[in-house]
């Protein structure tokens, strides 16, 4: 350890003495987010949905998998079945609550996985910017060339049906756009002088990426990723609608929408319920993402 020389102090000070420490960046962001009404409504809706899905057994006396053949396709508001029953006589409210578990999971998980991987790939490519960066980004461009839903279907079909595989497929679809956002943000940051200052202090590339680059590219990535949650739920629902995601009889919004398709002329409102929840969730995610962007965007001067 290098011994530190005690430096002589006292230079004519221009500092305003007794200065009070101002609020930190995060505290400011939190306040701004709290004051955004649309954002708060969206977050409340998402929390409510997640909580309801989590405590589904407490809220509903029915089994989501076992129906009553004598009470099929009851309308909304029937006694004992608040939201009616499906074509097999299973309680819709119960199935929607339980279905939320899978649907929210398949919405969140791919976004989290792809954000981690995409940020690592994108920031590395942006920082190195030589042949390694070029190879990384051109590979991402190849993934980018396919429409998201088509790519998800292709990957999912080759991996085989199942929730795990559909989560994997959607994650792979999202890696390309997220790494591109990360790369662009990294390129903007690395030309700034504080990166040079960090290099002068002898920090390694990994250390600079972690401590100097990452905190400064996090905002755009975070905002973009949160807007993908809605899309992720829609794609996951689409995959299970096509029979490539969750397998019956496990409830999942996308698959429920598919199986109730045939009853649209009998009970249109019941058949539309899973679709409404998919819409509400993805809408809330987008609103939350907008609010986040506004809250994080504090001007630096």
């Amino acid at each position, binding site marked *: *350890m*290098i011994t*530190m*020389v*005690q*430096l*002589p*102090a*006292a*230079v*004519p*000070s*221009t*500092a*305003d*003495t*007794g*200065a*009070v*420490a*101002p609020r*930190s*960046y995060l505290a400011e962001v939190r306040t701004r987010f709290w004051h955004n009404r649309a954002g708060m409504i969206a977050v409340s809706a998402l929390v409510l949905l997640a909580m309801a899905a989590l405590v589904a057994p407490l809220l509903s006396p029915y089994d989501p998998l076992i129906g009553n053949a004598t009470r099929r396709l009851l309308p909304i508001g029937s006694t004992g079945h608040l939201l009616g029953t499906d074509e097999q006589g299973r309680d819709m409210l119960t199935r929607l609550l339980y279905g939320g578990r899978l649907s929210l999971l398949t919405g969140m998980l791919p976004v989290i996985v792809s954000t981690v991987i995409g940020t690592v790939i994108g920031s590395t490519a942006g920082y190195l910017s030589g042949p390694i960066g070029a190879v990384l980004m051109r590979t991402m461009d190849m993934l980018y060339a396919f429409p998201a839903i088509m790519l998800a279907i292709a990957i999912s079909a080759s991996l085989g049906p199942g929730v795990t595989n559909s989560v994997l497929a959607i994650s792979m679809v999202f890696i390309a756009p997220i790494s591109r956002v990360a790369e662009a943000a990294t390129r903007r940051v690395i030309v*700034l*002088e*504080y990166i*040079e*200052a*960090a*290099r*002068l*202090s*002898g*920090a390694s590339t990994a*250390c600079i990426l972690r*401590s*100097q680059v990452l*905190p*400064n590219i996090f905002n755009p990535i975070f905002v973009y990723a949160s807007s993908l949650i809605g899309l992720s739920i829609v794609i996951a629902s689409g995959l299970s609608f096509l029979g490539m995601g969750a397998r019956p009889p496990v409830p999942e919004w996308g698959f429920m929408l598919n199986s109730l398709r045939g009853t649209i002329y009998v009970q249109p409102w019941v058949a539309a319920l899973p679709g409404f929840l998919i819409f509400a969730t993805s809408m809330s995610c987008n609103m939350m993402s907008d609010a986040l962007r506004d809250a994080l965007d*504090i*001007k*630096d*001067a």
Partner: protein
Amino acid sequence: MTMPTGHSQAANALTPPGTGGRSASSGVTPSPETRTQSHVLLRVDGLRKRFSVRTGLYSKAYVSAVDNVSFTVEAGTTLGIVGETGCGKSTTARLILGLIEPDAGTVAFEGVDVQTLTGLRRRTLRRNMQMIFQDPYSALNPRMSIGESIAFPLRVHGYSKAEQRERMEILLHQVGLHRHHASYYPHQMSGGQRQRVNIARALALEPRLVIADEAVSALDKSVQAQVLNLLTDLQERLQLTYIFISHDLNVVQYMSDRVLVMYLGQIVEHCTPEALYAAPLHPYTQVLLASIPDVNPDQPPAAPLEGELPSPLSPPSGCRFRTRCAAAMPICAAERPPMIQERPGHFVMCHLYGPSAPAGRGEGCIPIPHN
């Protein structure tokens, strides 16, 4: 001292004899012996850097940003570098610090060639050279508090949390900030305060050489004076060696013991600031000095320098200044002038002086307006 062989001839010719003015008067710690012994801290020799520029799909052109730059800096002194925007001042600084690799030439710190070192030894040597950046806004990480920014170099070098904290508070105090400022974020501070933070961070690792690249250019005049005084004060206290880069001649004169004048990547004149003001030799320096606005309104404005700065993509043959020089001669286009010592300690790269000088030397030069 171990010297890289090969370039030593040219470098010796450039070694400024004796120590210049201001630092000798600083009455603090170092013994008179160390002062009078001219101790070369940094030796830059034949430094070259070209940047490639894409001009078409397959064609490339090269910008010669720094061309054959050699100089030495003695411990405890300040070397000023002046020149127009784009003359290679900042590139020179980044080459010295190893932020970019030179195409040719050596940078020797305490006689050790920086490029020959690798890994930990290079890192240890590098902590002796730090930089104060031009833009106080982009030089600080907006997501790090001031304290974190100053302590970051210490963190990298493995100091404990307590040591980091202690040293950071000392540094804040040294640059005239309150220790409460540690929890501020850059956007909550003024430009002058940020530049103080910038200086504190550069000093965190106790460097011996500090390069200030246009350190005060972005600040108000009054704040400039404060920061310049802080820098000279710190130099005396910590026995720092500065390379002070600026386009502002007055600032450089105030700070420096020796001055380099650069034009299109080359050093054209090298002398003390007093000599530069009293009797500039190179026609470019003369024009540069004449362009400083006078406080006397009756003084007619100086004749402006004619023509644009030539493209560094294709610098003029021979002397690079000849396209704008009032005293240009046929030899200027044919031959690159050598760096010669015209007066003791006063070096100039111009055909008007030395063996190739015409009979009526200096004729046609713009008359010196000072005194």
